[in-house]
């Protein structure tokens, strides 16, 4: 009797000792397991589907076909590679303009001035709008026959433009919408970086006779570089994933000529329109690897710049 009690006490003691020693893991474990499942399961399932010929219904029997989907997708010059090109063009184009504009606006807002609060609120307004609502709004504005954009141009005698309706103009128009909406976020991040900077290096450069450009290029910009890279990383990943405004303005397939079909829109169409789940998963896996590659490159760059 006393032996059993003694064993139980010993077991309890050893368990409580173990739990106490690892309490940060014990407390965090449920959330970590949940997050791991949330990421690992869809990823694993997508990877599995990409190796099958699943189509029609996901519940229908399907065969394991190895890397056939990967060969098919990577040799598809009709839809896949143009979609990769558009994704890269949209991401890089929008991001570069957003970073330059964002830096300019952040520099303007950096030093205190009258009405600063109001200007900041106005600049941040596009950021709080829902992307789908933004897409619908710009779609109406850019309607070639009855939209406001062409009406506006006509006041200055400029001929009407096709905007979203044109095969060549649709993607640049959508990049403009993306820039309109997301530059404020870049401003916000860079402004946080700028306000945390000490005034001393700038003042020292001023005393040494450096002009405004020299002070920005040789002093401020290198100092704010870690924040800048963070903004590039965040905005780049976001732009890469853009789906809502493309879908809201051009619908499935990214327009009649697939003129705004990025990898996201293509994968969505394969899955929801064509019910080709195997092929769609393959596109997503390749896209995922591309994103990982981009993040890896940017992280290396950030580490180098912070050294």
């Amino acid at each position, binding site marked *: 009797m006393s032996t059993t009690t003694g064993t139980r006490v010993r077991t309890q003691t050893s368990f*409580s000792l173990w*739990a106490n020693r690892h309490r940060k893991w014990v407390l965090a474990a449920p959330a970590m397991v949940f997050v791991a499942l949330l990421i690992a399961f869809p990823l694993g399932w997508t990877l599995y589907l990409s190796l099958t010929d699943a189509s029609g*219904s*996901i*519940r229908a029997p399907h065969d394991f076909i190895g890397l056939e989907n990967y060969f098919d997708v990577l040799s598809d010059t009709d839809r896949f590679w143009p979609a990769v090109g558009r994704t890269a063009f949209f991401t890089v184009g929008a991001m570069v303009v957003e970073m330059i504009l964002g830096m300019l606006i952040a520099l303007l807002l950096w030093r205190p001035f009258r009405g600063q609060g109001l200007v900041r609120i106005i600049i941040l307004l596009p950021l709080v709008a829902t992307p789908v609502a933004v897409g619908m709004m710009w779609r109406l504005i850019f309607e*070639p026959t009855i939209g406001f954009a062409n009406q506006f141009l006509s006041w200055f005698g400029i001929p009407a433009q096709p905007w*979203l309706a044109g095969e060549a103009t649709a993607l640049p128009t959508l990049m403009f919408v993306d820039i309109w909406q997301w530059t404020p976020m870049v401003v916000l991040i860079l402004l946080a970086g700028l306000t945390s900077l000490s005034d001393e290096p700038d003042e020292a450069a001023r005393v040494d006779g450096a002009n405004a450009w020299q002070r920005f290029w040789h002093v401020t910009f290198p100092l704010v570089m870690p924040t800048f890279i963070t903004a590039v990383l965040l905005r780049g990943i976001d732009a890469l994933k853009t789906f809502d405004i493309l879908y809201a303005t051009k619908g499935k397939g990214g327009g009649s*000529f697939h003129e705004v079909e990025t990898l996201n829109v293509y994968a969505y169409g394969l899955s929801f329109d064509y019910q080709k789940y195997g092929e769609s998963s393959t596109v997503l896996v390749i896209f995922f690897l591309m994103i990982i590659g981009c993040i890896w490159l940017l992280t290396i760059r950030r580490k180098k710049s912070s050294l």
Partner: protein
Amino acid sequence: MKHRSIKVVTAAVAVTVLTGGLLAGCTTAEGEEGGKQTLRVTLANHVWTDIVKDKISDFEADHEGVTVEVTQLGEDQLSDQYNVKLNAGTDEIDVMMYRPLQEGKLFAQNGYLADLSDYVTRDAAWDWNDFQEGPVEATTYEGSVVGVPIITEQQVLYYRTDVLEKLGIAVPKTLDELEAAAKQIKEQGEIAGYVGRTGVSAAVTQWSSFLFSEGGDFANKDYTKATLDTPAAKEAYELYGRLIGQYGPANVSTDMSWPDAAALFAQGQVAFYSDASSLYQNLALEENSTVWDKVGYAPFPAGPAGSVPYNVPSWALGINNDSNKKDLAFDFVEWLTSPELTLEVQEAGVPAARTSVWDNPAGTASFPPQLAEAIAIGAKTGVGYDRPRVISVAEAREIVGAPIVVAITGGDVDAAIKKAQADFQAFLDDEND
């Protein structure tokens, strides 16, 4: 020791609460409780839905303990919902509004739609034989009834009475006359001649009547050979392209579905617009249109093969095969499609699939007389489909529609047709495999 125990207990409670919370989040909602039942119905945004939704309380009053929960979505969102939920084998949808010609074959093949063959014959008074033959064929899969058709559509020609009168143009009876009239109006420079859907996928259904009237079709009878490169199909592609590309609005968008095209007509920008008869309220009601009192209706103009518009069931009601309330679900479908409610719906302007409501003068009284006549002619001469009759309709529509967009934008139509023919043939070979 005591201090340690408190820590352990705290940790254990935290783990239990967090894990419990997660598990609670994973449990499914109960549909039934104490004899009460919830019938989950998914409907599309349509005039039909707006009319019947207001009457659902009558069904609930007749069925004690039953609550009908309606989810209403746009066409594309509805398809996406079905794609996700039915793929996962959900029983959270009982009654579903679907497009027999767009997704009927796919859903039936995937086993999403319950077999209603025994249900439709159980009540002679409800009268399954009253439903039109074409629509019934479209809701039947491999000999089993999988849906009850609710709305039918025929392609008709809408025109501006004032413009035709001013320019002394007669209402076009043939496609040649339509083209000549559209050209003349465009050349006047005030408004555009013709508009229709232009989106690669959306345009296919409205182009189909041009194809049929020119004497063509998407494929041969058993769908083993694509027929998009026949002279008839080529003429249909080119004519549709000329009508919109040359005589349509300037800078016309190539993404237009019916809301965009109808809006151009309703805002007085074009003289002719051809689309489904069921859309007439978007043009002819004062709150929707600036030209509501100047809208004329005509049967689809005749081509070399005559006037052959589509005459199709655009929507039907089906029951989810995984629903565990199939009997109640069919009671609801039966109630929604009863002769009385169908008549009421048609009186409100939605063309129905029951023969009796078309034979009843009250059923056609609310339609503009010209439109009723155009529908009657279309129903007689039309064909029962407006898109390729395949399983993966969305993909087929994109292939068939590609030359339409090229024709509208003035590109190389011959090359586009050649590519579409080859792609569609490969698609058919793949599907027939």
